[in-house]
């Protein structure tokens, strides 16, 4: 929703768009709502399992390099609406770049779940044969990539958008970033480029209030990053309260604009990081109660209730969906666990093609 917080930066068509938005809300397709529920739930369950898998071999003494899933692990529990509400509008031809916290987007974008899990387990059957790991998931089949350097995915998405434009397609590119990434030079340079060249780029800022231990207010000189759209003469949106349906609406508008050659947008969504920055984060810097409060307004639960209450689906049907999700994710974990490790010397391949 842009009216309250970023509306004053929007051109006059704001009111017109507001009207359209309401009609979209009324017309939001059942199929889309269920899709969003499904990907959010899949991501959530995937990560709940990952939380446990990550701890294997790291107890009683936590050692980051031990267990079947070594290295850093950034989970996105609580942030699912960003991915779901945006990616529901995308096709295989649209590009997504993500960050160090990529699972929810990867799952929404349709990255092969088995191969993704295997990758995180460092297996030969993984997306990158074990070379990438959790922060470096690449699935060109669905045009998904991510990486461990904050801000660095934005120019990649701009470049994909440039390619889309050069080829006269109506494909878009979406860069998902954290709120902390809006203070990188890459953010500014990419958005200026994209605005200048009217590229079909959308930057989704997941505002979870934190960049590791540094609160947004201690790192970002404006309360809302949608304000920064003004610096590039593009549209900015702010989605409040981690609401997947608002995210759906604003995303639709931004994507329609992009597909129509009207250039880039920034969408910031107020979202929640339930867990530590990475697994093992002692979180001395935040109040323990904070998380409990966040979890109490969980967007997946809310959507579930809404779906049932508004009779989109029955409790029965929903639990069938849930069990299908569990089955699919479980299968991916089984696949990952039972896959083989690469041979050590395979490390030498793939530097060049």
């Amino acid at each position: 929703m842009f009216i309250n917080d970023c509306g004053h930066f929007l051109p006059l068509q704001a009111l017109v768009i507001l009207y359209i938005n309401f009609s979209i809300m009324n017309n939001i397709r059942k199929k889309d709502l269920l899709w969003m529920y499904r990907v959010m739930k899949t991501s959530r369950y995937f990560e709940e399992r990952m939380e446990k898998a990550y701890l294997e071999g790291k107890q009683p003494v936590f050692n980051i390099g031990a267990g079947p899933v070594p290295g850093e692990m950034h989970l996105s529990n609580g942030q699912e609406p960003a991915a779901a509400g945006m990616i529901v509008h995308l096709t295989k031809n649209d590009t997504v770049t993500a960050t160090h916290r990529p699972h929810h987007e990867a799952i929404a974008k349709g990255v092969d779940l088995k191969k993704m899990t295997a990758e995180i387990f460092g297996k030969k059957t993984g997306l990158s044969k074990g070379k990438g790991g959790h922060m470096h998931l690449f699935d060109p089949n669905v045009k998904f990539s991510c990486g461990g350097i904050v801000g660095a995915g934005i120019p990649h998405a701009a470049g994909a958008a440039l390619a889309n434009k050069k080829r006269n397609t109506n494909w878009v590119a979406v860069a998902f970033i954290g709120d902390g990434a809006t203070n990188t030079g890459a953010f500014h340079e990419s958005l200026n480029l994209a605005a200048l060249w009217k590229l079909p780029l959308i930057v989704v800022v997941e505002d979870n209030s934190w960049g590791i231990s540094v609160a947004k207010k201690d790192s970002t000189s404006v309360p809302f990053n949608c304000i920064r759209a003004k610096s590039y003469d593009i549209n900015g949106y702010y989605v409040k309260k981690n609401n997947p349906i608002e995210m759906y609406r604003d995303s639709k508008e931004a994507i329609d604009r992009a597909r129509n050659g009207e250039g880039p947008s920034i969408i910031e969504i107020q979202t929640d990081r339930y867990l530590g920055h990475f697994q093992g984060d002692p979180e001395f810097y935040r109040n323990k109660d904070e998380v409990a409060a966040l979890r109490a307004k969980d967007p997946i639960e809310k959507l579930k209730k809404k779906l049932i209450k508004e009779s989109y689906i029955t409790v029965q049907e929903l639990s069938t969906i849930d069990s299908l999700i569990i089955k699919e994710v479980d299968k991916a974990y089984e696949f990952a666990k039972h896959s083989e490790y690469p041979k050590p010397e395979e490390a030498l391949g793939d530097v060049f093609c």
Partner: protein
Amino acid sequence: METTIEKTKKLTGSKAMIQALEQEMTIDDSIFIMGEDVGKYGGIFGSTTGLYSMFGKERVMDTPISETGFIGAAIGAAAEGLRPVVELMFVDFHGVAMDQIYNHMAKIQYMSGGRVKLPIVLMTAVGGGYSDAAQHSQTLYASFGHLPGLKVVAPTFPYDIKGMLISAIRDDNPVIFMFHKTLQGLGWMDQLEASLGEVPENAYAIPLNRAKVVKQGKDITIVGAQMMTVEALKAAEELAKKGIDAEVIDLRSIKPIDKETILKSVAKTHHLLVVDEDYLSYGITAEISAIVASEGFNSLNAPIGRLAIPDVPIPYSRVMEKFVIPNSEKIVEAVLKIVTV
């Protein structure tokens, strides 16, 4: 390997680059150029002159001063199947975009297990000698050579410039293509014989991983790249007068280094001097010395000689700049220390 020469024309380094770009862009629509002042201006060092009017602004794109933005965008566009040729105006500016270059362009193929290909050419001007001071005179060969995932070339002569640029464009991997300002044959710089050479009119490809013996000799091997090759050739003439027959190797490829050619030469000459327009420590002189000291140790009859910029930034004032950049006189001097040992 290096295709037979048919009709040739005398071209400068700059014209050789332009011809390579023009010929490849003509046959492959997916190639486009991006960079600062590559459009109407034609590249500050003449690497793209005329291409803008030939191919239009969609294929020869001027960019804002946003190296992270546009080099990063080249990565994104390449991942989608386009073939960007990006110009970083001076190699000295790499620091504002190094993350994109070394953490992404260089590693995405590997991190994706070979599933994403990045056919990008990053072309960039290197070199000093005209008083452009500490932030505009570097070569930084080793800064790129050190990092995995990049092919790094630095051809000297127009013939190699054209052939290696074509190979770089056709390569499905990211290639750093360094051209030396003084070897571009620009009207407003020193006029060097070396910057003009016979270049076949047809398109041809020269491998990106091979050094070249540019003068045969039997007493000492001198390895250099770009201007240091030119200076080494000059030195070799001087040395010949003193009865020393130097073999000169034009490195051409900074990464990977063509060990075979170098080791073979040292096996013959038993003496080695490496000359570099980059900084001494951790530079070309280090890497080639190490290769020979570990893989050609028994060929060596004397300590290896190293000549490079002595670990200082490049000073502005001509007298001081001349002092720090190796030249033919210093090469002669260094050789005399090795061969008479």
